């Protein structure tokens, strides 16, 4: 096989892995959108917040230490412990549950029956709030997240593939990050468990009922508010998973919240209401932008990854507004 061909395969493989990462964020969006019709812009910031909380708890950081120090002139930073990753993850989960309850109590309850676009803007406000809050709580410096996930290129794969190229060609094997592979496995597990949960448990069935029709669900005795808390908790959990994966990949920092913007075109491709759609949309975007950057990027100055996804979504929207797997949009006066 020619090295050029192998390079292309490598690009596609890396694109698929990147796509999985986008899908992880997009999943959280789809869950909330299905159950409450809210397009949750804050999903990316939730991932950032979850990752920050995880790092903070793991390293025993004192929350709001900067503020406390500034107000009282003290100099505290750490409790002086280092928790094992699993304990920190559990505590972070509790924090995300609390967060879900607070969001329901303070925001969603008051915005029932508002137009979707108002709810969307409310979540933008929530995103800003959380961004400031997270930074105030844990500090805004770039943090290193280490929960024991291996990273770096996979030597095994490189050795395996180096023999594929023709003799004497300058080819060193495929480079695929171990972290990306683990993320793929995690994403697959997540999707399977979410599907099982929504198909075979009582709560899952209630979730689907709410997604189908709010009023009908209310009339058979499903508590809308309880469902919303559950949905936001699950979204918080997905955000935590996404935050851990992205955080381990590129450090816990502000740019993490921008992946929410990347998830938007993923959703448009896959459809806002379809979990498999989120995955496939993510893969298409991931492969598409890597291939575009690889083939056409050098001709027009590179860094096309910034906009390719959005323009692809834009073109796509014109032909199929409901996405690949979304429900058909029917409008009545």
């Amino acid at each position, binding site marked *: 096989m020619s090295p050029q061909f192998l390079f292309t395969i490598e690009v596609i493989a890396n694109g698929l892995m990147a796509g999985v990462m986008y899908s992880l964020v997009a999943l959280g969006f789809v869950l909330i959108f299905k159950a409450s019709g809210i397009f949750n812009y804050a999903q990316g910031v939730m991932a950032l917040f979850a990752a920050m909380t995880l790092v903070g708890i793991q390293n025993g950081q004192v929350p709001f230490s900067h503020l406390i120090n500034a107000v009282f002139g003290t100099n505290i930073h750490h409790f002086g412990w280092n928790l094992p990753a699993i304990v920190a993850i559990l505590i972070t989960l509790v924090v995300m549950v609390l967060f879900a309850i607070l969001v329901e109590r303070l925001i969603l309850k008051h915005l029932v029956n508002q137009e979707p676009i108002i709810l969307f803007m409310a979540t933008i406000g929530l995103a800003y709030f959380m961004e400031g809050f997270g*930074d105030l709580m844990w500090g805004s410096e770039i943090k290193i997240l280490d929960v024991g996930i291996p990273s770096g290129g996979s030597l095994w794969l490189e050795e395996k593939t180096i023999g594929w190229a023709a003799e004497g060609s300058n080819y060193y094997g495929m480079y695929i990050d171990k972290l990306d592979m683990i993320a793929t496995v995690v994403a697959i597990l997540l999707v399977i468990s979410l599907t099982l949960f929504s198909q075979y448990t009582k709560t899952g069935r209630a979730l689907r009922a709410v997604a189908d029709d709010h009023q009908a669900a209310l009339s058979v005795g499903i508590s809308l508010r309880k469902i919303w808390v559950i949905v936001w908790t699950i979204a918080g959990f997905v955000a935590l998973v996404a935050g851990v994966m992205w955080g381990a990949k590129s450090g816990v920092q502000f740019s993490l919240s921008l992946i929410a913007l990347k998830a938007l075109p993923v959703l448009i491709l896959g459809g806002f209401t379809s979990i498999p759609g989120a995955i496939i949309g993510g893969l298409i975007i991931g492969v598409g932008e890597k291939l575009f950057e690889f083939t056409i990027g050098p001709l027009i100055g590179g860094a096309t990854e*910034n906009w390719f996804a959005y323009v692809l979504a834009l073109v796509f929207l014109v032909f199929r507004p409901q996405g690949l797997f979304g429900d058909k949009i029917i409008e009545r006066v």
Partner: protein
Amino acid sequence: MFYRQAGDFKTSYRGDIQTFPLKQDRIGYYLVLAIAFLVVPFLLNDYWVSAVILPFLIFAIAALGLNILTGYCGQVSLGTGGFMAVGAYACYKLMTAFPEMNMFVVVLGSGIVTAAVGLLFGIPSLRIKGFYLAVATLAAQFFLVWLFNKVPWFYNYSASGQINAPERLMMGFAITGPNASPAARYLFCLVILVALAVVARNLTRGRVGRSWMAIRDMDIAAEIIGVNPLKTKLSAFAVSSFFVGVAGALFFSVYLGAVEVTEAFGINQSFLVLFMIIIGGLGSIFGSFAGAAFLVLMPVLLKNIMVGGLGWPTDIAAHIEFIIVGGLIVLFLIAEPHGLAQLWRIAKEKLLLWPFPH
């Protein structure tokens, strides 16, 4: 003297539909204009102009533009930063290509260029709406910023990739470049803002504005009663982009002087303007002003209190600012979806009856 309607008789239709039907409002309006044009220029210093007043004037123009699109026509746009960049770069190209051109013509020209670009990105709005459209405008935002970064023609092949505003005179006074006096810059922006505000007010209460509002309230119903969605939506995009482009041109040439596109016209700028119209009031001319004033003044105020007054580090002040802005957005959407403009309207109604509310 009370704030009263009594005794203010209207004898013509024109009198009845004027913008300020109350005599006291009219007096107040002319008074504000007179102070803004005749008194303020003499009180200005450099700090006030560059920290508060110029950003306020320029963002008010941008907010007016976005309010036309989002508040009046109901099409959410997250591409404001990108369109401002178009205005800025059009302004730069016009300024350098035609050094003799009057600055008013340059600014209007940049607005027209932006309107054309806005039309182009408005075309998808015919098929999609709501946050689907918001995503489509995100494409405009990222693509335009990337374009201005990557194509050297736009920044005249300068080594730094920045654009710098050369000095231009207006009636003998420098209004751009390093020698411009605060008062000259202020007056130049003020004239444009007042003119555009009058245009916006009259557009939105005329036939065009009513068709925009019909599309906003229910587009399918509007289509059935004979509002042409193609014309209406695209005209909203064009007019809105014109305003935003003018704001971008002023932001670059008069306010900053030198611009690096990703920094000055990033996605945060789009959100900032969107927040201005949410807090100020969707679908209100006054609201655009109120929102711009609020979001320009609040950070300055917070910074002065927390950094200047309490001596906290600047990063904490910045975080608290985020918290407050985000919290306020949610609060306004829950408690008063029509923003500061509605509060102002309620206050006026109460004042009309005060002190005998029954």
